[in-house]
Structures are given as structure tokens and as C-alpha cells.
């Protein structure tokens, strides 16, 4: 490594949100060396959240969600090329076209991909979609615009629920099949999942919970699905929304600490190797990372959050060009949002890291509320429904490990604001879709299994 951290060669593998923000930050921080971004998609970095919302509704087309650049990262872009490995001794990234890129420091930001349907033949039928890429979004939007008779969504996590919401907004018949007891239960726990179920049904979704899809049927083109309760859902479009798979296979022989929940790194985004020794030239950011968080018992968090990708990328980039004493930890409190069925849902903290909840403001009846999650007597998360301006208050409570339940006094305090109820977050393996937040260390709740 050259003495001057602002110079040298940096390679970023992954040209989506985290990769782009890291590249911009490197230049912002005065990095003058050579910068190469490798991405397996042939597109410049683009934004994915609109793909399950505005794009499906036809308010924007899939090719218009390109991410605005804060500044020109002055990088060499290697787009449409897959990285196939890392030679840590030679310090080179191997590419599928046989070339290899030398690096002094490497950032891994390869993110996730949609978990495919288990049966490849069924998945290949016309009318069966997943939703992760621009092409997925364009294809699904086109099919929905053509006015199918019925859409089947498999999995009622955030993506599946947003797709179902878009379908209803377009006046399409939609069936949602979820193995768990209710939509969003894995992320938000039992109480809010009941509200989510009511919202889906009120908006005309044919919601089937506690069932699995056993087979997709059709002769080349999808015509319906068999469910585990013996029923059959005839439909002409199927969206498989079973969560995400981390793009780590290319690192199988790298000797890094790689697993299904991502690549483990320290609080400064430096990757661990398989022996638990921290590297100093390989960094990780975004959905593909697992990192320890002091607010959540130093467990390794895996997040699929837009905001985390940005913040972690900025910290990783800063640390890549800063000497040890000036490095920063990635301590941001996780946040995410979702819009569905006319509701704006926002979360701060880790709702699954909880044993009890209270409704601190508003009410389920009003469809407007702030729910606070606690673990062993301190506040660990909050979720607002159409009440996002309160979120910063709860974030402050989480950051200061404030006692749970939170102090009274809100003008719109719920009648039952001091009655705690079990958060009832289920074992993620029960759900159709994977968790969007995974705690992968020592888990606080025996209902969760160590993964």
C-alpha cells in the first residue's frame, strides 16, 4: 500500500447505490488515485425503490430511475462485467472476461439479488417475475399495464406488499400468498402485521396467510398456482417476492468471512477473513455487509436498507483514505420506509430486536400511530404509520438507550400508551420471504433461531 492513502488504486465491485456513493465520497475526501467500478449490470447506477412503486404504476419508466451523481467520481466504469473472485495475495480482482484488476484497496458492494423461485422450470414460464433489476421492473410494469385477470404475489414482505398495493391501485385483481401469519410480520411483529393484513383486505387484496405455494402451473405460460391448503389460484402473472440473496458466491474462494447473511466486517467496514482476522485493504458496504452494532448488543446486522447503503458507503470510503486515528465507525441507526395501501410506514432502529411494544401515539383505528419497541426495558426501535415527523424523537430515544416504555406526555398519546404487549416477532424461517433485517449473532429472543 502506498504511504499516501489519498493515492493508489481503488477498485469497487458493485456499481449500484453503495458503490456510487462510495466513489463520490472517495473523491470528496481528496482521493486522487485511480478508481475503477465494476458492475455486472450493463447500466449506470440506478435507484431501485421506485421499481416496486412509481414504475409499476406507470408514473415513471424503469429506465428513468438513474441515480443522480453528487459529483463526477472520475472513475473507470467496467459495467456489464461480473467479478468472479479476489486473489488477496496478488491483490487483484478477477473478472469473468479473464482480465484482472490490481488494487491497493478494494470495496465490496455487490448487494443482493432477488431470491428465485425454487423450481427453475416453473420460474422460466412466461408471466413469472421477480423484482430487483431495471429489466424486472420494466417487464412487470408492461405486463401489469396490459391488464392481466389476476396477479399472484408470493411473499408478503415489503416488496410483495408494495407490488400488491400497486396492483390494487391499478384496479387489478391480486392474490397474496404468505407462509407466515400476516404481511410484514417478520419486520414489524404481530400487532402492526394485523394492521397490514386489514389494509390489504380493505383494499381488495385476496390475502392468503399460513399457506405456501407448492407449484406454479402452466404450459410455457403461467396460468395459476397450487397452494398447500389444496386450493388453486388461477392467475396470469406471478411475482415471486421471497426476499433477497446476497451476492457473495464470487467470494467463495477468497478466504473472506462470507456466508448467506453477507460478508462480516468490523465497525469501520473492514472485512474479516474466515479466521476472524480483520483485513486492512478490503472494505464492505451496503446490503452485502454484516456489521456489529453497539446499540443492538454488538450483534452482526445485515440490512437491506437504502439509507444504510448510503451511510455505510460514506464511512467505508472515508476510512479507505484515512489513517487509523481518523477512521470513523458506522454507527448509524437503521431506518427504512415503505409506502403501500395509502400508508407511509417508516422505521428506525431494529424492530426485531425487541420483546415488548407500546403504541405511544395515535391508534390502529386512526391508521396513524407511532409504535415503540423495547428490549429488556430500553427503547430499541420505533415504527410510524403516517406519522413520520415523530421519528427523530424516537431515534433519539434509541440512541440514548432510553427506558422502555417511553415517558408519557404526547398530546396524541394513545389510551393504552403504558400497556406493553409482546412484540411477537416470529422466527424468520417461518416466513415466505427472508428478513430485511437479520440479527446474526447472539439473538435476544428464543423465538428467533441462530442463523
Amino acid at each position, binding site marked *: 500500500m502506498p504511504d499516501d492513502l489519498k493515492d493508489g488504486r481503488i477498485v469497487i465491485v458493485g456499481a449500484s447505490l453503495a458503490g456510487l456513493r462510495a466513489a463520490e465520497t472517495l473523491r470528496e475526501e481528496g482521493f486522487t488515485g485511480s478508481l475503477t467500478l465494476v458492475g455486472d449490470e450493463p447500466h449506470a447506477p440506478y435507484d431501485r425503490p421506485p421499481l416496486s412503486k412509481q414504475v409499476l404504476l406507470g408514473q415513471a419508466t424503469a429506465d428513468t430511475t438513474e441515480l443522480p451523481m453528487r459529483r463526477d467520481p472520475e472513475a473507470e466504469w467496467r459495467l456489464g462485467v461480473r467479478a468472479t473472485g479476489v486473489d488477496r495475495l496478488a491483490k487483484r480482482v478477477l473478472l469473468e472476461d479473464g482480465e484482472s484488476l490490481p488494487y491497493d484497496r478494494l470495496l465490496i458492494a455487490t448487494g443482493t439479488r432477488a431470491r428465485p423461485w425454487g423450481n427453475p422450470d416453473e420460474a422460466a414460464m412466461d408471466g413469472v417475475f421477480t423484482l430487483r433489476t431495471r429489466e424486472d421492473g420494466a417487464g412487470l410494469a408492461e405486463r401489469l399495464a396490459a391488464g392481466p385477470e389476476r396477479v399472484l404475489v408470493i411473499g408478503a414482505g415489503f416488496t410483495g406488499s408494495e407490488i400488491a398495493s400497486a396492483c390494487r391501485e391499478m384496479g387489478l385483481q391480486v392474490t397474496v400468498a404468505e407462509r407466515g401469519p400476516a404481511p410484514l410480520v417478520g419486520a414489524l411483529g404481530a400487532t402492526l402485521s394485523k394492521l397490514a393484513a386489514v389494509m390489504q383486505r380493505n383494499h381488495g387484496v385476496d390475502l392468503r396467510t399460513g399457506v405456501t405455494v407448492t407449484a406454479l402451473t402452466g404450459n410455457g405460460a403461467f396460468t395459476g398456482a397450487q397452494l398447500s391448503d389444496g386450493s388453486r389460484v388461477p392467475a396470469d402473472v406471478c411475482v415471486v417476492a421471497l426476499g433477497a440473496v446476497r451476492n457473495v458466491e464470487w467470494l467463495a474462494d477468497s478466504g473472506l468471512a462470507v456466508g448467506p447473511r453477507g460478508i462480516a466486517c468490523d465497525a469501520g467496514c473492514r472485512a474479516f477473513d474466515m479466521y476472524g482476522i480483520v483485513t486492512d485493504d478490503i472494505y464492505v458496504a451496503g446490503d452485502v455487509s454484516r456489521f456489529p452494532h453497539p446499540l443492538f448488543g454488538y450483534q452482526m446486522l445485515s440490512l437491506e436498507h437504502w439509507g444504510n447503503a448510503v451511510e455505510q458507503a460514506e464511512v467505508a470510503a472515508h476510512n479507505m483514505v484515512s489513517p487509523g486515528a481518523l477512521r470513523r465507525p458506522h454507527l448509524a441507526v437503521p431506518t427504512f420506509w415503505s409506502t403501500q395501501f395509502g400508508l407511509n410506514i417508516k422505521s428506525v432502529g431494529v424492530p426485531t430486536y425487541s420483546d415488548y411494544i407500546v403504541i405511544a401515539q*395515535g391508534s390502529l383505528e386512526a391508521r*396513524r400511530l407511532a409504535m415503540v419497541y423495547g428490549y429488556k426495558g430500553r427503547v430499541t426501535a420505533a415504527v410510524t404509520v403516517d406519522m413520520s*415527523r415523530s421519528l*427523530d424523537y424516537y431515534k433519539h430515544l434509541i440512541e440514548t438507550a432510553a427506558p422502555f416504555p417511553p415517558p408519557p*406526555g*404526547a*398530546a*396524541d398519546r394513545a389510551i393504552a400508551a403504558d400497556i406493553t404487549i409482546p412484540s411477537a416477532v416470529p422466527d424468520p424461517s417461518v416466513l415466505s420471504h427472508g428478513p430485511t433485517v437479520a440479527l446474526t449473532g447472539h439473538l435476544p429472543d428464543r423465538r428467533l433461531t441462530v442463523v
Partner: protein
Amino acid sequence: MDSETLLARISDYASRPNPYPLYAELREAGPVVWQAGGNCLIGGYHHIAALLHDPRMSADPRTRGEETQKPPFLRLDDPEHHRLRTLAMRPFGPPHTPGRVDSMRGEIDRITKELLEPFETGGQIDIVDDFAYPLPVTVICRLLGVPREDEPLFRGWSDALVAAADLKPDQDSTDTRKAGDQARIEMGGYLVNLAEQRRGQPSGDLLSALVNEPDPALRLTREELAETAVLLLIAGHETTVNLITNGVLTLLRQPEQQDLLRREPELLPRAVEELLRYEPPVHMRERIPHSDIDVAGTRIPAGTSVILVLGAGNRDPRRFQDPDRFDPTRTDTQHLGFGSGIHFCYGAPLARLEAYTALGALLPRLAEARLVQDPPPYRQNAMLRGPRHLPVQL
């Protein structure tokens, strides 16, 4: 000097041209600074921001025992605040009317040009009376559906209401409060009458939209309509006048920044955000805790009048680098100029558009201009702080 008198000294008219040394004294004096009257001041950015988001903080003066009629949504708490603000927002902004402010762009441009037309190089104008006041007033009149020629009528009411809302710790405020209440009743009656004329005859403005709402669940009562319309008319022009005038004053005091903006007009939106930080139109807001709260280790009992000094938070060196410097290229401008939390300025998108348009159109004519009087004479109000006149030689 004694920090117990800070609010009195800030409110003192002599402090109006430059309250910032007092704000620095306030931040130095501690996170919570008790005043002789039993209320307290808070001037640190992070504490203000936290309290603006704190659901235990009430905006309603009745929380500290003031006996008054039900205030408009600016001074109500959720859930009632949310209901009324949402109804008022339906004809004004997203999600129901996302294009409203943008559709006014052409008209704001035209009004600005008309106002600037008589200005001659070498002549003397009053930026306030000739430009910064008539622009937002004309715009808000169009938006609401109020005849522009009635301005002398509602200006009197508006003055009385704004005076009643000011913080004057030393004076007996009974008379100004009474005058304010009377003005509120008369102005409300006037606006409801205008709205009634539009019932069944939609005219595209906000009063018309509010009175012609087809869904009975989304209609305002007569009292709510009066309160809301009064609030929008006053808030729609009292604050924007200060924003534009403070902008011109700041630019005339700093010719090098003026030159920069003339060379790079694309910096203007950022410059307006910086202006909202550096010279905000609203300097203080009152909040009252519903229950005892703790701010940085200081207990503030329920019912206490807590004055959040936004103007001090905006210059807090713990939040902004080099806070007393006006820097239109500053990217970190998360100011408190529009407040924050559930009461975040309802009209912010319109205020921004008016400020870009006004300053953008005026900039080419300011190159040779100079201030006739510096500091200029200020308005009495310490909360809505801004010059009363700004004479400028073009």
C-alpha cells in the same frame, strides 16, 4: 450581564438590527436558560431540533393555562392539528394537489417583472414597500382568492394579529391581545364571507376549494375555515417579506457573494437555504411541555413556556462550521428557518419559489446599488424579525 434578562434584551427594540451577539450569549449560558418571568430560552441547534420533534411538546397556548379560543392549526397539537393541516393541504400540495405551487411559477415571474418595471437606475426605492411586501401579498391573494385591492383592510388586521403574537416580556400585553382577538374575528368573518360567495361556483382558488369540498368528512366548519384562512393569509405574506428583504440586505452587505450569484445563478436555490439559516424570517417559537421533561439534565416542568430561539440554533457553532459567515455555496444547510417536526412550514415550497424568483430578478440590478441606511429601520416584532424599510439607491 445576567442571563435571566436575555429575553428582555432580545425583545428590546434596540437589539433588532443585530440580535446575534445575544444569541451567542444565550448558547454560552447553557442549554436551558431560565428567565425572570419563569419561562426559559433554548438556543442550541440540537436541543431545539429535538424539542421540535418531541411529541410531548405542545404548541397550544392553552397548555400553559392561557384562556383563549381554539387557535389555528399552527398552534394546535395532534391529532387535531394533523386533521386541520391535512385538510388545508389538500388543495395546496401533495399528495392531492402536487402541481399547485409549480403552476404559479409563471404568475410569480410576471408579478415580479411588473413590480421591477418602474425601478430606474439612479433612483431610490424602498425594497420593502415597493417590492418585498407587494410580491407575496399579490401571490397569496391570487392563491387564496382574496381581492388585491382589499389589502389596506387586511393589512390592519394582520398588523394587530402579528403584534399580539409577539413576545414582550416587560409589557402588559392585555391590550394588544384584545386587539388581536378582535382583528382575528373581523378578518375571519371577511374571509368566510369571501369563501361563501364561491360556494357552488368554484373559482380555482383555495377558499373556493375549501368551501366546495364534496366529501362532508373533509369539510371545515365555519370556525375552522375562518381560523385556517386567517392563518394562511397572514403566514403567506408576513414571513416571505422578511425573507426577501433580508436577502437583499445580506447581498448588498456582501458584494462579493452578490457577484458570485450573478456569475453562477444556479447557486440561487442553495443561497436561499443559506439565507434561511443566516437570517431566518422567524426567530422564535414557543412550545409548552405537556409533562415534565428533561433537557440536557435540566428539568422543565409541565406548563412552562419554552422559547426555542431558531435564530440562535441556526448560528450554533456546534452544528455549523463558521456559522456567522453567509456562504451561498454551503452544502450543509439543514436550518431551522422553516421550523421542523409536525409544524414544519406549510408554505415552504411557495416561500422558496418566491424568494428564488424575487432575488433572481433583482440580482442584475443590484450590481451598482447601495444601502441608503445601514442598519435599516426594523419592524417592532422580535419573533418575525425583518426590516420595516430598506431604502436602496439603484
